[in-house]
């Protein structure tokens, strides 16, 4: 599947929690209607201070490597979009035939604008990029809010991107995948494919010199994101304290990462990703 992440910084007229309401509320309501969308998830940075909020979370200090300063100033949340293809993604922002009206089913132009709230919801444009995904443990969601983590990792300058991906997927994530309580583990490598042009208006902040600098600065701090889903925070922290696993993980981390740091995110499943072939009727 084609998969894109879009990191966003809230409009400064909104608090973080107001931004949540507007993104998970109004904005997702339109985003989930994008034409041919196959999955849509919003991850909002948690209000919890991860290093102190949970029993055992002091272990975080030991497993963090070179966390960038003020990293959270650059984002409040990130969305995930799944489509069958790049072409479907680019054509998704068009009026949707999904509104009942006096003439039957009618087109709604507001879907092409994704609610037309971007300038009030965000500061500048999203940092949107295509990810090369490796599903290490397929995500299974129960009917409750899961504990979800995003681990940002950065490769050493002298390691090729292909080898970096191969080592993380093949060694590091394989080792992680045995952690008790894990309900999903997905590796996402950021790719250089341009998925901004054609999706955002040419006059968007993303295409200005300042916008490019802002985005590149953010990208310079990490190369990939490992997403974890657990029933409970204690599953992760007890797993990372387990001495049968952690010496090996620590060794890999010291070899593979020049930076590695964690954030808890609150996940809104706006459209459950459907990795099966599409059905021949409207389905979300």
């Amino acid at each position, binding site marked *: 599947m084609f998969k894109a992440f879009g990191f966003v910084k809230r409009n400064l007229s909104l608090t973080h929690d107001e931004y949540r309401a*507007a993104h998970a509320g109004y904005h997702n309501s339109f985003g*989930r209607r994008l034409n041919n969308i196959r999955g849509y998830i919003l991850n909002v940075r948690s209000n919890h201070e991860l290093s102190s909020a949970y029993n055992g979370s002091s272990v975080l200090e030991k497993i963090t490597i070179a966390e960038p300063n003020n990293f959270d100033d650059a984002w409040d949340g990130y969305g995930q979009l799944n489509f069958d293809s790049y072409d479907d993604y680019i054509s998704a922002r068009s009026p949707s035939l999904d509104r009942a009206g006096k003439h039957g089913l009618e087109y709604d132009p507001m879907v092409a604008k994704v609610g037309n709230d971007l300038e009030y919801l965000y500061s500048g444009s999203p940092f949107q990029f295509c990810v090369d995904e490796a599903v290490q443990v397929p995500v299974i969601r129960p009917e409750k809010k899961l504990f979800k983590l995003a681990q940002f990792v950065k490769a050493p300058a002298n390691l090729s991107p292909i080898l970096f991906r191969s080592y993380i997927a093949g060694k590091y994530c394989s080792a992680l995948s045995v952690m008790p309580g894990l309900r999903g583990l997905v590796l996402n490598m950021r790719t250089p494919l341009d998925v901004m042009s054609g999706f955002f208006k040419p006059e968007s902040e993303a295409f200005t010199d300042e916008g490019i600098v802002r985005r590149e600065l953010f990208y310079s701090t990490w190369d990939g994101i490992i997403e974890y889903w657990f029933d409970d925070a204690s599953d992760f922290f007890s797993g990372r304290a387990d001495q049968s696993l952690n010496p090996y993980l620590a060794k890999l981390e010291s070899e593979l990462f020049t930076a590695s740091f964690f954030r808890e995110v609150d996940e809104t499943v706006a459209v*459950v990703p459907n990795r099966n072939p599409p059905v021949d009727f*409207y389905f979300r």
Partner: protein
Amino acid sequence: MFKVFAFLKRNSELLSHDEYRAGHIGFHCCNSRRLTGIRGYIVNVWANEGLASKIGPGYKDIIINEPTGFNDLWDGFPQVYFDDAASWKKATTIEPTRATENGLSIDPDWTLSDSGFLFDPVDASLKEFKSNHLKMDEEIIIPVNRPERKVTKIIQFFKKHDFIDELDFRNIMLSSYAKKLSNMEGLKGLTLNFRDHDIDSAIKGFYPDTGWHFSKQGNYERSQFASLWDGAFEMYFDNIDAFKAGRMTSSLNETLTALDRKLFSSAWYVEVDENVIIMPNRDPAPDFYYR
């Protein structure tokens, strides 16, 4: 949790079944997923090919007195979850969810005014639509765990024999029938729902007293629909073959079929396409906006 099934027939003058899907899952849910206090929201639409056709001749052996034209009475049924009845009744008191030039605001364009075009209207004015909103008393037999793909969901509707006492029936269903059913191989989730006998329990305080639902005709039509069934199982499988293997060709088949005849005056199955609008969250609500 407070759980409601709302059986809805499309406006068949304006929409085909597949057009109804798009209108309901698309624009309508764009608004209804922002109902205040909603904790879970799923829309089930009957599958385009019936189970009798998918399963073949064996289907008639596992059903009892399926009401003729049952699926003509509805096209889809949302199931919504709230913390309690009070939250449900206040759900259309809309909260701020839209970023505007004035910060976080109540969305002035929020509307459910498509309902008359989307659902079966009471009359040509399209101001009201007919629905069967029914409060369900839920028992989770096997918790639902959803993978990242479309699952096969089958609803088993059942109506108890008149001669079985209501309380006895519940006890048997919970202690015996559901337990046996839960042994079906390939089952990924199983929920038992008893329909509240008061057909007004989901709509008192939600719809106006003067509306169609509480009119003589409305009450008659809703009573007729509710009288067809007393409860429903929601069953989740990977595919229809898994259901066939679990229900029809396994060693359980004989036991379940015998129990069906002992307990039910009617029982039948409908496959639905499940659209997860809001993943139900059965944990306490967090202290921030969450869907």
